[in-house]
């Protein structure tokens, strides 16, 4: 016995209104389960109201469904984290390592040619690049900021702040030990270009990983 569209909508409203299920993917999966349970009970002779009450109880009610939703959130964030790590690792694996090496060589040639002030300023702006990409992505795909996409955006925001925070910590730490810290840092970056190159390279790759992650979908596919 198949449920009518009106009955399916009623079940959907139960899940949204009584259990506050907010993620489209999860909602679709639970509506199907809830509807199948209800259909099974209706086939045994119960009315829709009675059958849906029993099905709700079997689903675990509000508490059970809340537990499922919390677990779902954790699972999505975990998936995003795994994908992000895989992207970052791929930069040091064949064949992408060739592009990484070329970028490193380019920076190695370029950095020593720049004046100390420019190197320090470039590193500062590079640290901001993940956030710039976030702003770009934010306006590029307004539709992704709904449902499951919210969790992905939350992850982006948290991780995009890491280079800025590291920069802040390093600046504050050096300021605490010396009054001429900015001058010392600029000289250090110019004297040891390999350090500057590594900082630039890692920040660039980190920013690039956000662009790649941005194009990954964390929704299930319609067959």
């Amino acid at each position, binding site marked *: 016995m198949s449920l009518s569209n009106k009955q*399916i909508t009623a079940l959907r409203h139960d899940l949204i209104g009584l259990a506050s299920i907010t993620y489209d*993917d999860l909602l679709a999966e639970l509506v*199907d389960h809830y509807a199948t349970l209800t259909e099974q009970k209706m086939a045994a002779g119960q009315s829709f109201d009675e059958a849906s009450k029993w099905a709700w109880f079997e689903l675990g009610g509000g508490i059970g469904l809340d537990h499922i939703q919390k677990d*779902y959130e954790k*699972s999505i964030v975990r998936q995003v984290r795994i994908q992000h790590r895989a992207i970052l690792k791929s930069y040091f694996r064949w064949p992408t390592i060739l592009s990484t090496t070329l970028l490193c060589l380019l920076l190695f040639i370029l950095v020593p040619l720049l004046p100390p002030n420019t190197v320090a300023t470039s590193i500062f702006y590079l640290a901001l690049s993940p956030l710039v990409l976030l702003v770009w992505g934010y306006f590029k795909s307004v539709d992704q900021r709904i449902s499951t996409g919210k969790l992905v955006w939350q992850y982006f925001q948290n991780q995009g702040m890491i280079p800025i925070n590291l920069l802040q910590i390093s600046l504050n730490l050096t300021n605490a030990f010396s009054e001429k810290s900015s001058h010392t840092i600029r000289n250090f970056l110019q004297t040891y270009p390999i350090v500057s190159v590594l900082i630039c390279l890692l920040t660039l790759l980190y920013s690039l990983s956000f662009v790649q992650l941005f194009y990954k979908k964390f929704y299930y596919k319609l067959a």
Partner: protein
Amino acid sequence: MNTSNNSSLLKGSLSVIILRLLEDRDKMYGYEITQKVKELTAGEMTITEGALYPALHKLEAEGLLTTETQIVDGRARKYYSLTKTGHTEAAGRIADLTAFLENLNLVLKLKPSL
């Protein structure tokens, strides 16, 4: 079987049960998994939705399951199937659980005089 004992015993082996069922079939959806377990155990073992979906989502996040959705009776139905890694992992986990159960059986059959 006592329900609370049943669920606590089931907790550790739920992922293996899911992997084993999906080894036999191309794809399954959540409700189908609960019914299959009920059917195979003649109603002795029941998987609650609160335990099933977190387990499915965890296996999906680990890359052992992949999903696709089909429209059935006017609603979206999410099907789970094993990935290549999932097939390999399933074989390993089933072997581990079987060995564990054999050892457990030996301990449970231990005679008092020993």
